[in-house]
């Protein structure tokens, strides 16, 4: 039975092999901030941090992250990046936003003042159908304001 720490709380997960981390987070732990938009690892809406690194929880088997520290959007609710996204209007429908913020947080944790090119490179795996991209870039550039 895999054990994980999610946002600092420890859980033992009773799930069949093949269950994804996203399914566990949403269905078992009711942490529905992590969204599933494609379920195939292609859009980034399900991005969470596993041991600090952004990964796609919809194609990560929960059994292969046994022992890991997982951080979801719920664990970042008071991060300044959240406030910055709202201030910059970096979201429209909001469905991709938790994933965007998780990726953005990982970026600024390792590079607090990313350039435009660095933002575009690091955020290219988080699709947004509403096209909030210019303001996502602005939110990341101004996250400490």
């Amino acid at each position, binding site marked *: 039975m895999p054990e994980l720490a999610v946002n600092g709380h420890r859980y033992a997960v009773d799930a069949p092999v093949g269950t994804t981390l996203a399914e566990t987070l949403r269905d078992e732990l009711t942490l529905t901030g*992590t969204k599933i*938009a494609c379920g195939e690892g292609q859009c980034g809406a399900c991005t969470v941090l596993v041991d600090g690194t952004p990964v796609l929880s919809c194609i990560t088997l929960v059994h292969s992250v046994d022992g890991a520290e997982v951080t979801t959007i719920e664990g970042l609710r008071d991060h300044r990046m959240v406030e910055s996204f709202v201030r910059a209007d970096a979201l429209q429908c*909001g469905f991709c936003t938790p994933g965007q913020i998780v990726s953005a947080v990982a970026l600024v944790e390792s590079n607090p003042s990313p350039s435009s090119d660095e933002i*575009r490179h690091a*955020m290219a795996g988080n699709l947004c159908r509403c096209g909030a991209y210019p303001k996502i870039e602005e939110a990341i550039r101004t996250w400490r304001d």
Partner: protein
Amino acid sequence: MARLIRTEKEIEGRYEEVWIVVEEDVLEQWPPGPLNVVGRPAPRGDGLQRARGEAIYTADLRLNGMLHAAVLRSPHAHARVTRIDLAPALAVPGVHAAIGPGETEVLAGECGFEGAPIAAVCADTLEQARAGVAAIDVEFELLEPILDSDEAVVRGSLLGEPRVRQRGDVERGLAEADVVLSAEFRTSVVLHNSFETHQAIVQWVGDTVEVHISTQFIWGVRDEVAKGLSLPPDKVRVICNYMGGGFGSKNSPDDYTFIAAELAKRTGRPVKCALTRREEHLAAGNRNATIQRLTVGAKEDGTLTALRGEYVNAVGWGGWSSPTEGPMHLLYSCPNVASTTYPAKLNQPPMKAFRAPGFVEGTFGLEALLDELAAKIGLDPLELRRRNHAEQDPSDDRPFSGKNLVECYRRAEPHWERRHEVRARSTDVVKRGVGMASQIWYGGGGPPSYAWVRVGSDGRATVVTAMQDIGTGTKTAMAQIAAEELRIPLEHVTVSAGDSARGPYASISAGSSTTPSMGPAVRAAAADARRQIEEIAEQRGDPDMPLGEVVALLEDAQVLGKGARGPNPTGMQVLTFGVQVAEVAVDVETGEIWVERVAAVHDVGRVINPLGASSQIEGGIIQGIGHTLSEERLHDPSSGAILTTSFESYRLPTIADVPEIVSELVDVPDPNLTNLGSKGLGEPPIVPTAAAIANAIRDATGAEVRRLPITREEMLRALREAEQRQRESERSEAPARV
């Protein structure tokens, strides 16, 4: 006073004559320009809930005892079910019910497209439901698919009569022309791909049906579900608090809602039916492909004498024929215009409205052709548009309620002027250029729409209306309008929306209509509340008493205001306008295109929230860039099966594909439109983007792109064709050697 009137109602360019009860709009418009709250940037009120992942979308909702449904969809573009046995599905552990063709109206054994729903299963878990679907024993007779829209027209496979529209005499107009140009343009199928897939949860509560649904139209779902289930509309409650994008594809309940309703009825449990991303690529609607065979005639000075178009809308198996010819009839003052639009019925998934349906496609063809004309007669493309500006609706001479397109052109000039400097930065391999295109579209909104405003003793106000916010920020705009009218801070206004049982009828969020439909009703309701508060103040002998002090007297009493959207101006055409200027770079060896900058100037009347408005413009342009460069649904040419069913093969723009975007709004209230003078902004920004980019490519390279998307293949084809043309003209101009 309420009044019953017969009026024209427009949504997405489709008109119908309806009887509606309207209330006169008695409020004077506010003076132009930014006010205390309206016209000032405001971050969206529910932004924090969305950003923190606290907002509960339909996709996040779990009701007690909820079952999950999965749908058997046709794997064939055209087939008939010859035998189907649901018994093996019912034997799968966890399965509670299975329904097949005819057991609800949306399930059928005749399959006109890949993805057509045939049967459905519900189970305790989604995996069990899918196993149930996989267990269904089904046999098909394969039928020949019709996939080519020209062939469909020839064979008479049409969804209705061809639409013929004309004014003047096109043949005479062409005879009078100094220059006549013809070209064929094609646009491809593109998909909405909202991030929250289409889905609904249906449960029966006593004799009432509750529908939780990701929708753009709570009241439309209510009416259609009531009709489908033969219930009084008030026995259907529709709830949508947060929804993850629609772009025109979520205006109706569709198959998944009726499947969930039938399975909920049979099992006595709430049933959720959600499309997967793969199903979303098949059965959630699309912007249909078009073929546009266009001819323009003009005098040497650029005056248009004739426009003619033969349009084929590749509608698919169902849907409607969008106004692809609309821009040709509305955009320019040309005396002779004729078009025929064929609605081709194909064995392809049905279209649905997609952000300015028809006009995105039609503007591409028309505005690209006009640039070819400008090049031919050696006239500045912007000047060509100015010379053919329409002072009134050119199709019926109705005055416009308000039109500031010339002002848009004026404000676009500095961006247009950059073309000399941009071109000068070209190299042998990377060519740069600038192109522009005009925008015209609807967006006036209309009645009926209602709102209530509740003010309590704490001095805070709640706007109550059963509308939905599909991510455009309309809830925030409504709060701003109420705050302005009540003269209280924006933070003191809450908007309660998203539930047909908890508020009055509200507009569809489509056709750029939410703000222009709901805004005037909210303002009227707030004004009604304010009037009552002022009456109380007068009774207290102090007409100037601040609102806070008046309402503090209320204790548990509340002031309740109500408001309705008044009628649109009689005999006037209400439209939105704009212009976009795109800068591109093209690698002429590899066909790579960079859109480097897009400047957008639009006229949508008064702007409520400049921050949200700029987001709408950016989003529209970025979707437009996707349509122009990377997005295309492909099908297998012999079977008609859809090949691009994932985000890997259907390519939405990423953040790395986004250019610098500069946006500006004229921000002058439409003097004839409601107490606000506001029009909608959801759709206008996507309308001219493809045309502006195509024209910039032509400016940079001389290549005439005639097809969307402009893939590497299309770009290289157009470049080689332009080289060929160049060589031929050099040969013909070379002096003959004797």
